[in-house]
């Protein structure tokens, strides 16, 4: 089977011989954000949905773990998970926007458009910047409603 055996066939040069460009950043971020959403994002969503179906107590336990524990004496465990939960949610927000924007870019590239050097560079950069900006805007919106 393919994989481990050495081969005499010509091989593509490794990544480090190429000059790094925005299209390479967009490409690797598409994979990172997609796989992050596929594992962490999907599991968080299932945890939330399962807690919602299981009733008010299970749902309150979920919120107390990942967002804010309302009890006056918060356990050390929940103090840690309350911070960790918000970090993960910020990360998932970024992954969502990044994967959405670079995914739409891929759908456009699939039509054969946008491969000219300048155009490709421009939209790869726009997609990465838009992911960060949309994440910042979303969390400003969330935190403005919280406080």
């Amino acid at each position, binding site marked *: 089977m393919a994989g481990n055996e050495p081969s005499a066939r010509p091989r593509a040069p490794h990544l480090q011989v190429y000059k790094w460009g925005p299209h390479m950043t967009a490409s690797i971020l598409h994979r990172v954000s997609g796989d992050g959403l596929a594992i962490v994002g*999907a599991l968080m969503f299932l945890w939330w*949905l399962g807690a919602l179906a299981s*009733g008010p107590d299970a749902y309150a336990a979920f919120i107390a773990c990942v967002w804010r524990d309302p009890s006056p004496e918060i356990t050390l465990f929940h103090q840690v998970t309350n911070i960790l939960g918000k970090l993960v949610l910020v990360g998932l927000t970024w992954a969502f926007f990044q994967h959405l924007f670079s995914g739409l870019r891929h759908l456009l590239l699939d039509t054969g458009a946008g491969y000219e050097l300048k155009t490709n560079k421009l939209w790869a950069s726009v997609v990465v910047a838009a992911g960060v900006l949309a994440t910042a805007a979303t969390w400003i919106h969330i935190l403005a409603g919280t406080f």
Partner: protein
Amino acid sequence: MGNGTQLGKVRGLGASHHGSHHWLQQRLTALGNVLLVGFLVVSLLRLPLGDHGAVHRWAANPTVALALVLLLVSVFWHLRLGLQVLIEDYVHGAARLVAIVLLNFYAIGGAAFGIFAVVRIVLAPAAGLAPGGM
């Protein structure tokens, strides 16, 4: 396109023997995800997420429940295709087979868990139970 045999060209399956199914399904589920996950994210931003009753009533709405079921199918099919490519790029030999089997368990099991959770939410009143008492 290509220099395959006449029959190979007609079947259009290429070296992987799977043709463009994987590629096409990834794009089609991507379009589904844009609509369905977009709907979910906007809903999450507008819902009082700390209020179990309010979120439960939202999810029990037939239109929302249908969207959630479609979302689970589209998202888990899309993530199965995406993680398959990740495994094919980085995992080799016998470990790859194990990884692909585990991936299928994760994708099908996760989607089934999610869809069953939606069914529990929708049918809680029909079963004569308080929301979430099922």
